């Protein structure tokens, strides 16, 4: 199975200057690009699509990625031609768009237990950055010069990178023996320099931070803020709200929790919710109801951090999130969390691989022990499923971080468990030489990085 590059099929070179309305010194000389016909394009991308695993292909239990079914109707809602407006339109001329923004802000605030929400951040990491910038603006506004953000060792790598991007020093907090935050270590770590603690809850092995109230108190007492990483919010829908746990600021991953499609890497959206005290620092503009008229208007928060996206973020994605939340409603949201947790626990029960920590919620980190987790994963590909996230988090040796989500049924989980068990029990040789039943066999990733070839031009140069 192999599809030639578009450039290998047909290329044309255009003499740009021949018909340019511009003087020659302002134009390029020529442009060379593929020039396929529409039938060729249709076949090219149809074939490429068939060489791509997706949630509509089968189980996709990537821990911490929350790959769940993306309801088709949300696509149709987002494709409404009346929604296709320019961001510089006057607020009065796009009351529908502002209205939906407002409603989604409200939904998210309710679900997170937050007081105010911005929809602007275009992805989860952008949401993190927004949240930390808001925290920073808050501290600066109150004359506090704080230089550190505390991050548990088991946290998503993005937390570290985000804190650094915002200009903070990162203080890494070792995990406790039970896989959760070590409260004593936390007490030692926080202080006058602490701007915030970034926390995922349930954490990255699915454990709820039982001492969350103590944690919040410690951070708050030190003058810091508590940041909630929304990556694992799916486990808490309707069961617990970050705002009720003492979190001051959080982001939502709509492509995880609210089932917007991940598109092979994006676009996502990372709305940020905050408690009242932080609302005046949120990005501009926000949307509120007008007084009295039943309309909506944009406004600039008093001490806004400015902007984190050139316009209004990934709006088409946000529409889908709205439609999803409206479809589920209170009961559906709570049931999604319940079934996600049920599925993770059932699958863990069914596999022959140790799961060191518990009680976990929506995901668990099995340990492949003396097997190479990445090799086990490759062998799983041969059994027609997508494997879990491997070798992370590091607190679990040869981790296989698994999150089936609520969309798998019992028989699907049984099949998935069988794939785990067959792969785990296979010979070393079989593991190392797998996969064999996939479109491509094992790919040399070391070589790819050693000699980067990042374009067809680079291939031509060889």
């Amino acid at each position: 199975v192999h599809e030639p590059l578009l450039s290998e099929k047909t290329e044309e070179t255009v003499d740009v200057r021949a018909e340019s309305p511009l003087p020659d010194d302002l134009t390029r000389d020529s442009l060379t690009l593929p020039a396929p016909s529409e039938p060729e394009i249709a076949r090219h991308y149809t074939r490429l699509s068939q060489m791509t695993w997706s949630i509509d292909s089968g189980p996709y239990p990537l821990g911490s990625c929350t790959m769940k079914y993306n309801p088709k109707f949300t696509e149709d809602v987002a494709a409404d031609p009346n929604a296709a407006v320019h961001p510089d339109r006057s607020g009065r001329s796009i009351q529908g768009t502002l209205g939906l923004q407002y409603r989604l802000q409200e939904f998210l605030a309710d679900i997170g237990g937050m007081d105010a929400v911005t929809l602007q951040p275009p992805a989860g990491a952008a949401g993190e950055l927004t949240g930390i910038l808001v925290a920073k603006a808050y501290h600066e506004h109150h004359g506090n010069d704080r230089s550190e953000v505390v991050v548990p060792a088991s946290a998503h790598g993005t937390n570290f990178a985000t804190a650094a991007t915002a200009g903070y020093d990162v203080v890494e907090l070792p995990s406790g023996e039970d896989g959760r935050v070590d409260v004593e270590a936390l007490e030692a770590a926080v202080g006058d320099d602490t701007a915030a603690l970034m926390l995922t809850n349930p954490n990255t092995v699915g454990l709820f931070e039982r001492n969350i109230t103590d944690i919040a108190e410690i951070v708050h007492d030190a003058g810091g803020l508590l940041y909630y990483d929304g990556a694992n919010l799916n486990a808490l829908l309707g069961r617990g709200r970050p705002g009720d746990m003492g979190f001051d600021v959080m982001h939502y991953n709509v492509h995880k929790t609210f089932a917007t499609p991940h598109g092979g890497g994006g676009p996502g959206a990372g709305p940020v919710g905050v408690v009242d005290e932080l609302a005046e620092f949120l990005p501009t503009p926000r949307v509120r109801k007008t007084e009295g008229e039943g309309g909506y208007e944009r406004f600039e928060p008093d001490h806004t951090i400015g902007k984190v996206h050139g316009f209004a973020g990934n709006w088409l994605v946000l529409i889908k999130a709205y439609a999803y939340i409206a479809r589920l409603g209170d009961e559906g949201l709570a049931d999604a969390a319940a079934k996600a947790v049920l599925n993770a626990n059932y699958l863990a029960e069914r596999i022959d691989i140790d799961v060191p920590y518990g009680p976990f919620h929506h995901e668990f980190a099995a340990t492949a022990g003396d097997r190479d987790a990445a090799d086990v994963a490759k062998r799983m590909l041969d059994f027609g499923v997508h494997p879990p996230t491997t070798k992370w988090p590091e607190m679990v040796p040869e981790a296989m971080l698994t999150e089936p989500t609520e969309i798998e049924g019992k028989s699907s989980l049984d099949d998935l468990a069988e794939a785990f068990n067959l792969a785990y029990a296979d010979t070393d040789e079989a593991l190392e030489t797998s996969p064999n039943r996939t479109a491509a066999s094992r790919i040399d990733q070391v070589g790819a990085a050693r000699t980067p070839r990042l374009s067809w031009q680079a291939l031509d140069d060889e």
Partner: protein
Amino acid sequence: MSRADGSPYAPHTDAETAKMLSAIGVDDEEALFDIPDSVAFDGEFGIDSRSEREIRAECARLFDRNDDLTEFLGRGHYGHYVPSVVDHLSDRAEFLTSYTQYQPEISQGFLQALFEYQSILVELTGLDVANCSMYDAATALGEAATLADRVRSTSGDVVLVPAQLREGKQAVLENYCAGAELTVESYPMDDGNADVDALAERADSDVVMVYAENPTVRGCVEERLAAIGEVADDADALFALGSDVVSLAVLQEPASVGADVVVGEAGALGLPTAYGMGLGIFACSDDFIRQVPGRLVGASEERAPPEGARDRGGDAAESGGDRAFTLTLQTREQHIRKERATSNICTNQAWVALRAAIHAATLGPNGLVDLANDCIREAAALADAIDDLTGAAAPVHNRHHVREFAVRVDQPAAAVAEDLEAEGFAVHVIGEHLLQVCVTDLNAARADDLVTTLGEVI
């Protein structure tokens, strides 16, 4: 139904749920939650579940409240006709509902599509490397500044940007710069282009990056790009050039004028008007290959299968050594390098990049050049027509324009825009007596109507 009300996307029948609970050894789902009572939520959001039919109707009603205006709007977000094939192919579930390609063996299709997208950007910019997307032009510019901070060993911390810059873009840049302890300063303009002399005067060893745009936010073709590049070079600063995917097809090739980094928007291809949703370009020279933010797809090979693999069957058992694609240079990224990553970006705009690549393929180089030339010709024609009106002058700047241009009106611009809106047209207000107008294939047929209406309201 034997399935209790709940998520319509969770397939469990009550019987299956019972079996699963029993296998786990608990009585109900509640028992699986380890949330202390003190922080457990037992309230209601008050969100009523609605059917998909109801939600579609509700949202249709809501969006119907948006006025049906013909938009002559641009300034960084452009509407071009997107061929149907782009929707039909990009909407295929394998593309739309896949995750980042962590298992390349079952993701070759999307990886190849992103590799091809990167290649198109390499051709358009003339630079060696393009990543497979940033969020938008503004965040790409922010990332360019942090890259400059990492790769330029100047003593300074100043990022120089044009005085005429989209406000949102400047605001985003400032947020990225604040984290890197960089300062953003503006250099003056000269009739819609950079004032290169003033820029040269300002550019000293404090400067880590000089940013210019072509076309500028007011649609002007920047005429002295090479000179700007030299100024940056002389200051040992990075030269970052902003553009958009359509303009790049005809304007000077960024590599030829010394650009070190190209940022900008590629969503003008593949994306319909989408309330500002974008597709950030990030391209640079090979020198910075290990400093690039965001994801990169590289070509590699399948490992040769050992003897014996064939016994397990399957297509792959036959192959080995074939070209294959994979995400690469991941040690730059946050999930490996944590706080020393080149950026915190992970989820990007991959699917939008796919759409842009498909759109580019439908156009081919001829179609893309034609589209860009039409943007130039239509802007000139519309400016001419507006200039003929009493009480309006266009273009304000004596430059070549792509898609858009500033218009001076004798009356207050805000009032004129409001009157136009009442007549069904949307334009930008960019100054007390300044409007900005953007014309593309989507609104060109209404350009004459705009002129007529403008003539009536001024």
